[in-house]
């Protein structure tokens, strides 16, 4: 009896060939993107999306063409933060036209497909029972469509805002073999860094791309009246973590309530408040990303 290896094909479905086509199409689409950067944390609630939105805008303000993908399929927030929520997206000549932020950043997010605020991401299925068997695959297919089917055009930077958790990193390796690097966001608390360290380990082990550096968000509070800076959390842990993993500390973004207000309004903080401690840090972060890819660091 012939064995699996003796049979030349799978009866005509050519599943491997179809997957290869998916990969080819993805690579073809991303060939015009110079640098792909994943923004990750591992820990939820540290402000990845707000850092992503502001970093993308800061890069845009510095004259770059920038795109952002909200890879948080189930909890999309980038569209709101970048002021594109409710924008109609439509077909172009070779895919779907992304939403466009007021600063010209191209955005693709599941949020643009959902009916309203209350609608969760629910896939049509005969039964939602035991959805764990296929839901993750469905989400990665959606992410692959965002990457492949969006008319990104020529971009200097494509930022990917990853959801919390480390489980998506191995999938990202398959989707993006040409990932340029990762930026890891944390807050100063020990609990946050306990989780973020796991992401750093996984990123260094799995990804064929360097960790560009760590960003400490909500680093301190700057008094709006007197300008005095006070720590929100015990400080020093992030420096220690960066040393431990031999990665750069790219910046410490002070807490500023206007970041949250801007996110809620869909008006980008870094554009409106460039000359504030947080605004300057975000602009400096963009400069460091540029320098990294220009091999200046």
């Amino acid at each position, binding site marked *: 009896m*012939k064995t699996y290896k003796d049979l030349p*094909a799978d009866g005509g*479905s050519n599943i491997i060939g179809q997957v290869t*086509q998916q990969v*080819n199409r993805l690579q073809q689409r991303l060939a015009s993107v110079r640098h792909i950067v994943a923004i990750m944390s591992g820990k939820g609630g540290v402000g990845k999306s707000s850092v992503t939105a502001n970093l993308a805008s800061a890069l845009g303000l510095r004259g770059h063409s920038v795109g952002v993908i909200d890879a948080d399929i189930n909890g999309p927030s980038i569209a709101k933060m970048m002021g594109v929520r409710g924008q109609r997206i439509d*077909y172009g000549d070779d895919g779907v036209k992304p939403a466009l932020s007021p600063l010209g950043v191209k955005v693709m997010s599941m949020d643009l497909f959902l*009916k309203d605020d209350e609608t969760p991401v629910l896939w049509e299925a*005969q039964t939602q029972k035991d959805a764990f068997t296929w839901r993750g695959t469905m989400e990665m297919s*959606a992410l692959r469509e965002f990457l492949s089917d969006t008319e990104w055009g020529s971009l200097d930077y494509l930022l990917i805002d990853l959801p919390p958790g480390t489980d998506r990193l191995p999938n990202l390796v398959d989707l993006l073999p040409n990932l340029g690097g990762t930026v890891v966001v944390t807050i100063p608390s020990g609990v946050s860094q306990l989780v973020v360290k796991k992401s750093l380990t996984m990123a260094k082990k799995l990804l064929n791309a360097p960790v560009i550096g760590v960003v400490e968000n909500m680093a301190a509070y700057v008094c709006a009246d007197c300008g005095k800076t006070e720590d929100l959390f015990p400080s020093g842990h992030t420096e220690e973590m960066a040393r431990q993993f031999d990665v750069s500390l790219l910046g410490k973004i002070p807490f500023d309530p206007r970041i949250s207000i801007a996110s809620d309004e869909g008006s980008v903080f870094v554009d409106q408040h460039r000359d504030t401690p947080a605004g300057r840090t975000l602009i400096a972060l963009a400069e460091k990303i540029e320098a990294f890819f220009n091999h200046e660091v």
Partner: protein
Amino acid sequence: MKFLCLECNTAMEFKETATPDQGSLTAIFECPDCFAEFAMHMNPWETQMLKSLDVQLGGKSEAAQPMQMVRSFLNQQNPDNLTAEAPTVSTEGGGKCPFTSVVAEAFQEPVEATGPVWTPEALARLERVPSFVRSMAKTGIEEFARENGHTEITAEVMDTARGNFGM
């Protein structure tokens, strides 16, 4: 997966798929030598996994549409987005776009299924249909609308379709 005809010691070939029955997709294979056929019934989870992989049984390719998977399987969508007819995505360099997937062939949702357009009122009514039959009802009403030349599905079209279905 590969299938072998034990009688002929020959690789069996994919022949066709049958409409999913209660979420279970059937694929039929045939031996090219003795023409023996067998049906492989996938359980709903296997069927759903196939959908989520975005590949197509039989390897048949249709003209590609962007965001096919998201648009086909996302339960409740923004009615304002991507409602017009989609252009064919270029296949240059990458072969046929994978996002036509199982939708067009195996699940019998034609690629032209971008229209007719649902009005918000009709969509709201559709949402009141129990979830386990909603997908079937949606497909049936869309087919009815297409066959009867409706470019828009309104509450009235739904009522007519319902009468036509004998409900």
